């Protein structure tokens, strides 16, 4: 009897006092993406792309963008709730875009907020838009799919097939911020006009110093940087080859790869050895009489691809060391892990040291498959 009484008391307390976190799904407005623009006096403007959901068959979903100013991101978010009358739900949002100006002021506060709040996925992709406002990106036309947020998510998922940038999620950015000897980068977005519609294209990288935007990398450099950071080469390598006085293009897809970044301590200074080992499948070849089944011709092909990768890597290293002076490669982190005693001395002025590090690039390419053709198609007269 006493037990029953206790049960009744507990049950009624719980039921009468209500269900605090209870929410109705239909009262939420699903955010698909967010954009942050710089406002006056260190404030910001938050734009959120949401879906207008209507029942019926099939379900009608139309994306629309609302925006509200705020002193901080959280403040702006709550202001937005007042504006729409619906709780903004970020559980299914996949993309957050910073404007160039806002990124220059520093994104640390906003990213920290997103990491801290359990309602926001830490695997949300982050972007910096170049030459337009974040709001414009959200209002742009997504080529496929319903919303820009969803479109950007899809683009990031397939990045490894043809890297033009480095996909970065909130937690990765935070990790780069907190680790020693590693500068954060974020993928860059440009609005490109295709047939009257403006499409957000992900190309290149924004390079950060601390949490502030410091410079840009173009798509070509960003591609190599993504190889070095993920220790993996993916996508297609295109190169020009000279054969019998003709110059034609060759394209090959990388099937397996191994990238080694090895810091070495020689003559009282750090050197960096970069070693690529990759296997490729030949996909396209411009020459009609290039018989790649012969070992020396095959070697010419492999060396051509290797040279391309080597040149691109050296170009990237030049940009990083001489123009940006920014260790987005994580070399400092590597030095700390592999040579902690030297790092203690180097860490004080690492960025300057970094720009002086001699770099050696070695590339070894092995071609294993050539599709269904044993020899190129012959263009006989």
């Amino acid at each position, binding site marked *: 009897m006493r037990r029953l009484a206790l049960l009744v008391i507990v*049950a009624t307390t719980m039921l009468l006092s209500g*269900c605090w976190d209870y929410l*109705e*799904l239909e009262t939420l407005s*699903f955010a698909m993406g967010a954009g942050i623009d710089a406002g006056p006096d260190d404030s910001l403007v938050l734009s959120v792309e949401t879906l207008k*959901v209507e*029942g019926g068959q099939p379900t009608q979903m139309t994306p629309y963008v609302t925006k509200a100013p705020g002193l901080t991101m959280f403040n702006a978010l709550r202001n937005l709730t007042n504006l729409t009358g619906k709780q903004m739900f970020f*559980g299914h949002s996949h993309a957050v875009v910073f404007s160039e100006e806002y990124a220059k002021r520093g994104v640390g506060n906003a990213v920290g907020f997103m990491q801290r709040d359990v309602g926001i996925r830490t695997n949300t992709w982050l972007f910096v838009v170049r030459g337009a406002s974040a709001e414009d990106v959200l209002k742009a036309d997504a080529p496929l799919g319903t919303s820009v947020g969803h479109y950007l998510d899809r683009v990031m998922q397939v990045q490894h097939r043809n890297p033009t940038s480095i996909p970065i999620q909130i937690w990765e950015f935070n990790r780069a911020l907190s680790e020693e000897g590693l500068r954060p980068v974020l993928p860059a977005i440009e609005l490109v006009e295709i047939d009257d519609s403006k499409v957000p294209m992900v190309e290149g990288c924004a390079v950060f110093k601390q949490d502030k935007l410091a410079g840009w990398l173009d798509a070509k450099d960003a591609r190599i940087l993504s190889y070095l950071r993920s220790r993996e080469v993916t996508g297609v390598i295109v190169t020009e080859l000279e054969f019998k006085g003709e110059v034609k293009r060759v394209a090959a897809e990388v099937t397996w790869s191994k990238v080694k970044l090895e810091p070495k301590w020689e003559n009282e200074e750090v050197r960096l050895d970069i070693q690529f080992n990759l296997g490729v499948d030949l996909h396209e070849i411009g020459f009609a009489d290039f018989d790649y089944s012969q070992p020396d011709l095959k070697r010419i092909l492999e060396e051509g691809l290797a040279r391309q990768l080597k040149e691109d890597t050296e170009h990237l290293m030049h940009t990083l060391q001489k123009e940006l002076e920014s260790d987005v490669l994580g070399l400092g982190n590597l030095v700390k892990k592999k040579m902690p005693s030297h790092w203690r001395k180097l860490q004080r002025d690492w960025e300057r040291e970094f720009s002086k590090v001699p770099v050696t690039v070695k590339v070894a390419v092995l071609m294993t498959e050539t599709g269904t053709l044993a020899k190129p198609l012959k263009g006989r007269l």
Partner: protein
Amino acid sequence: MRPLLQRLFGKKVRTTAEPAYVASTIKEVTEHLQSSIFVGDDTIVYRSFMTGDPHPRECLLVYPEGMTDSAFLSEYVVKPLSQLSLAPGLWGAKLSEFLSEQALPVSGVEERTLLAEVVDEVLTGDAALFVDGCAAAFIIRSKKLTLRPPSEPQSESVVRGPREGFGESLTVNTTLIRRRIRSPKLKFNFLQLGQQTHTKVAVAYIEGIASPAIVDEVKRRIAAIDIDGILDSGYIEELIKDEPLLPVKTIGHTERPDVVAARILEGRVAVLVDGSPVALTMPFLFTEHLQANEDYYKHFAIGSVDRLIRYTCMFISTSTPALYLALLAYHPILIPTHLAISISAARQSVPFPAVIEVFVMGLLFEIMREGGVRLPTPIGQALSIVGAIVLGDAAVQAQIVSAPMIIVVAITAISGFAVPSFYGVMILLRAFFALLAAVLGLYGYFCGLIAATVYLMSVRSFGVPYMVNFTSFDPQNIKDTAIRVPWWVMRRRPQLIGRLNPERYRKGARP
């Protein structure tokens, strides 16, 4: 049998106020029966006749109308006796010896001197013969009960397996078991229960396999029953089960003799009750909810898949409403994006909050089930049409209920029917989980799950832990739970139940 039982339990099974003995004259007997015992009972037939010349003596046959084969009595009792001439000096013990051993050409004549015993026999459908001058009654086995023929039980139909089911007669039911286990070690102990109904109850087990402690415990608990009537084995179940206050099933019940035989062979004890086609088996473990006799008749792999499906169904049926509610109202972040959006769209114009929807729709379904369960099949079909079309389709069309909710209710219901013996408990668990999920989301659901499992863990059925198959690390205990291993692997009987004789087969039984 009675002295034996009295010795066993140290207690009289049935007590009479004062032991009355059969009188020696027919007149007195008739007087006594008609005016004090069977007063106002018109079903009792008093058929008096005379033995043959030269010294006719009065005889009286007493039997209940309709329960006795009266043609048999005329042919084999009245006819030979009326042609028999009894010597005038034949009285008392000599007379009874003569009658039972020589005069009556029927088997199974027993002599009774206690009147109460005679009455008892008459009420079960046998005839009592009184002969003038003999202070005893002769019980003539002439029962003729019209019985339902053993048919396939509707509640436990199988695709493959025997089609026989228990009937209402205890003797027939015991033979159904005996026919399957022709071993002298199969024991049936009878006892009588119910002050008014005098219902016969049989405790069946195999000596040498069943644990004597469990058999004794069963008998002790049954003997402790003191009730006026037993109309079905359900009475006994409720009076002897462990955890009487909670709806957890700790005693199994079945209408199938093959199931009872299988359980007895594992070392369990069965209790059969006269007048009830439902046999009880004990101890009952949690896994038995999920076992079906057909699992053992099919290929073991297919039987195992069925088992796993039943386990899944149990989970789905108890948890789906709670999980739906928790995900929808507390963790929409866990629902895949497109699903979340389409549920949100479906709920746009539904006026009720999800909690109300879950509870009302759950209740509505149970109402439909309860409404239809005792209806004849044709009307039952009409009911399901009304339920499906009116409540399901129309409610969604009118946007009173959201379509996902209908799907949840349907999945819950269908999965529930896969585990019929757990159904009642599942309704309660479902409501309990849903309530906690409504207040605290998945955290509440997990807490409910822990509470339910901890509680189940503490239950014992006749001393055997209810969940022993899940907690044990011994492979012998687990092999017949989530899967059904082949017979030759199941060499041992369940531990703690059939420990006395653990080996089912010798080694090397594998074909």
